[in-house]
């Protein structure tokens, strides 16, 4: 049996692919950040929405975006350039100030089409705040595939996606296994 002892794997032209650490806090095999896309972004100001209309969440504040694969300014979409299987999740808070919250659901769209639904709430509570969460394992081709997070809020009053310092409405994703 042959044993190869290295601390780092690089391409022939010197691009770091992975680090192998045997001690300290970062022990283990670590893919370079660009090879393991992960992002988390949240909505920073309340977003007004129309009744019973699937509306894209404008998750505009990034907590991290290791491969610069999430667009937090224009399209609010995640387009990783590493093919593989990703865990994608999102949460939306639905608020109806001065009215009633009806049906609510968060939905992951893939390539512009409805792809996976989250939990559906059907309430009739005055002035309520409801959450819907959605999570799915999704294949990306590493070139053109992308996902976005939409929410539907039925009800009356002033309808918004909630904020609360970034804790309520957010969108996240991470590579689980390459293709």
């Amino acid at each position, binding site marked *: 049996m042959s044993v190869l002892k290295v601390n780092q794997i690089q391409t022939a032209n010197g691009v770091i692919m992975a680090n192998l650490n045997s001690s300290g806090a970062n022990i283990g095999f670590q893919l370079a950040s660009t090879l393991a896309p992960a992002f988390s972004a949240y909505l920073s100001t309340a977003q007004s929405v*129309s009744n019973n209309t699937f509306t894209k969440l404008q998750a505009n504040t990034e907590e991290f975006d290791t491969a610069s694969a999430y667009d937090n300014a224009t399209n609010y979409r995640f387009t990783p350039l590493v093919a593989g299987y990703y865990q994608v999740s999102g949460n939306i808070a639905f608020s109806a100030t001065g009215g009633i919250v009806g*049906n609510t659901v968060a939905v992951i769209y893939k390539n512009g089409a409805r792809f996976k639904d989250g939990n559906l709430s059907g309430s009739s509570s005055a002035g309520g705040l409801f959450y819907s969460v959605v999570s799915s394992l999704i294949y990306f081709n590493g070139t053109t595939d992308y996902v976005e997070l939409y929410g539907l809020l039925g009800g009356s009053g002033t309808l918004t996606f909630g904020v609360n310092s970034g804790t309520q409405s957010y969108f996240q994703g991470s590579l689980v296994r390459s293709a």
Partner: protein
Amino acid sequence: MTLYEKIKALYPELQDIDFVFGTILLQNDSDGNGDYIKSWTHPTLTQPTQEQLDAIQ
């Protein structure tokens, strides 16, 4: 008046759940272009024309 409200004015028999499961899918892509009808596959009610929608105040 929102697009949803106009459609409800035209078809008051519609239930909110019709807008959840896709027989009538209203969408807003947060790109500044507003609400629009993404798809309409209701089994009995026909999709309203833009003229019908514009006529509702």
